[in-house]
């Protein structure tokens, strides 16, 4: 089924706005309606903006009037950085339920629902496997407010899917987002001059670049992906590795016992670490992203590349006070990047685009030493390896890198043929 008339919720937030801009350029899209509770930051060509109340009470009327066939819900708040827990509950659970009721209500033509969820669904647990697969579910009931919101929202979406077997319902569980526009508690920790950590723990971090968030959502709109999918970049880094890539020291300010109390003290000093993040700083989290890849999505950035990109963005900013300030949409620059014929590679393209760039980031790749490149090789897929092989051969042609690439390719081909 083709998505022609699309409604995007949460369009005033970076992901929603970028998604609307991305979908505008897709052929076959007739109408895009963006709804949110405040004015959008992005400029739209085709998309129309409608301001709604926080409960999304008028949602059903908009759906019917615009004959919407696809709803992309990007509202879910998984981080209490700038919203109270009570408001978050309203957005995550109350509004989701009324939105779903509107989608399934009389006169609705909604045939596809893409729900942006969060990896906070899984929570932090020492009993978790290294890579969480979509079926694992929750071993124990959620312990924090945000976690139970996410679980309740997904439960509502699941029962909607069960009641409407004819519609395609996609749930995308996003890892922690990084990028120039994204704002979260996690990112504000990484933006500090030293990265705070929990004494005696070096958790595994897996991130997703905001471009891949938009890319994955757009992929779910363009294709039929019923079910739940994890969306997280390839590769897992230890927090200490993330800190060293950012060129910052790791500062174990939180004690292993009574971390919650210590976090409360830090909050008085102006550093807010939510409970969910404390769990992540203790146990880390890895998501099994193979299902989304099998469904045809190609990630543009690995976790390492996302961190390196974040580093490049951080280095242009003042040292302190950069965590909370909001992103400024610079109209001229954005217009130029989107429409000018002199721009070679559109910045929002990638992801599902048919011809991915030669290498994700040739500029930063050339700066990597042979040892660093060899470390990355283990996490790459065969076609990426082939591309990297040709890039390396034509540019620096370091024999150690070429040898490692050939070895890995042979190994991959061997294991493919055995299967």
């Amino acid at each position, binding site marked *: 089924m083709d998505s022609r008339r699309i409604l995007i919720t949460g369009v005033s937030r970076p992901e929603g706005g970028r998604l609307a801009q991305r979908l505008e350029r897709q052929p076959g899209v007739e109408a895009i309606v963006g709804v949110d509770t405040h004015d959008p930051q992005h400029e739209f060509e085709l998309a129309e903006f409608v301001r709604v109340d926080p409960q999304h009470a008028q949602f059903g009327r908009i759906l019917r009037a615009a004959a919407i066939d696809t709803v992309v819900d990007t509202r879910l708040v998984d981080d209490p950085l700038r919203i109270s827990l009570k408001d978050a509950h309203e957005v995550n659970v109350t509004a989701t339920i009324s939105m779903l009721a509107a989608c399934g209500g009389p006169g609705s033509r909604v045939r596809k629902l893409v729900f942006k969820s969060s990896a906070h669904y899984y929570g932090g647990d*020492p*009993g978790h*496997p290294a890579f969480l697969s979509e079926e694992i579910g929750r071993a124990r009931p959620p312990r924090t407010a945000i976690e139970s919101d996410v679980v309740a929202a997904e439960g509502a979406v699941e029962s909607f899917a069960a009641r409407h077997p004819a519609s395609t319902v996609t749930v995308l569980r996003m890892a922690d987002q990084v990028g120039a526009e994204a704002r979260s508690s996690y990112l504000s920790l990484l933006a500090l001059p030293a990265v705070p950590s929990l004494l005696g723990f070096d958790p595994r971090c897996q991130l997703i670049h905001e471009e891949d968030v938009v890319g994955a959502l757009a992929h779910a709109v363009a294709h039929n992906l019923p079910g739940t999918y994890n969306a997280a970049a390839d590769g897992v880094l230890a927090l200490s590795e993330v800190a060293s890539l950012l060129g910052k020291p790791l500062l174990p300010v939180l004690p292993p016992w009574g971390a919650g109390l210590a976090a409360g003290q830090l909050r008085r000093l102006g550093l807010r670490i939510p409970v969910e993040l404390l769990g992540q700083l203790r146990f880390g989290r890895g998501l099994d992203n193979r299902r989304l890849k099998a469904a045809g999505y190609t990630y543009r950035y690995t976790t390492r590349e996302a961190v390196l990109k974040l580093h490049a963005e951080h280095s242009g900013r003042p040292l302190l006070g950069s965590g909370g300030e909001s992103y400024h949409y610079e109209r001229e620059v954005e217009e130029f990047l989107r429409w000018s014929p002199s721009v070679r590679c559109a910045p929002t393209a990638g992801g599902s685009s048919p011809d991915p760039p030669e290498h994700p980031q040739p500029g930063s790749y050339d700066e990597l030493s042979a040892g660093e490149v060899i470390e990355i090789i283990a996490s790459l897929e065969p076609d990426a390896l082939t591309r990297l092989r040709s890039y390396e051969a034509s540019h620096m042609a370091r024999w150690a890198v070429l040898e490692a690439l050939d070895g890995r390719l042979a190994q991959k081909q061997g294991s493919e043929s055995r299967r």
Partner: protein
Amino acid sequence: MDRTLYEFLYRYWFRTEIEGVEHVPSEGGALLVANHGGAAPTGGPMIAKALKESGHQLRPLHLLTDPPLQGFPGLGMLFTKLGAVPDHPDNVHRLLFDERQLVLAVPERAQAAGKAVGERYRVRSFERGAFVRAAVRAGTPIVPIAVLGPQEASPLFGRVDPLRRLTRLPRVPLSTGFPLPAKFRIRFLAPVGTSELSRVATDGAAVQALAEEVRSIIQANLLQMTAGRRSVWLG
């Protein structure tokens, strides 16, 4: 740092002798199963070191650890850096099947933690046989390993239960601070195939039987090895 420590322990402290390394397959996943070794986990690292020393292959060996230990400050970090992985069916399957790696399981771990010095080398039942299930699901062979030495190197005298409650560790063993210089012998045994059990049929009785078979192979070899040695310290 660990390299020098392991090197020292392996070569000079435990004077490790190995036999039958050729039984470890040089490619594809394989599940290695060893008897439990004393209060401090000296057995696992020495098996890993033995594989590396023998030049048999350059593949790392992944040790399985108790998941609760992962939540303990310092330990979880250390284990991850040593390439150990929490014992979870999904982790084991991913390593064995998807990544075709070597995994070392110590199935008696949970009960053997309470095994005092007097009961050493009596291999406890591999209850539930979770490791067999993992190997069958991944279609990999099981390589039994008999390890002699670790139980004398770090004998278990008792447990400190109040401390255990206080720290919430699964166990706080009372043992020597640093392992004693017992002579280590590691014997890799002929692989036990899991192909006769189909991937779907993981019925309890068959799994139990295979687990018991692996246990008895290890036990028989341990008895043979203990009978053959003249001294705990010199071999």
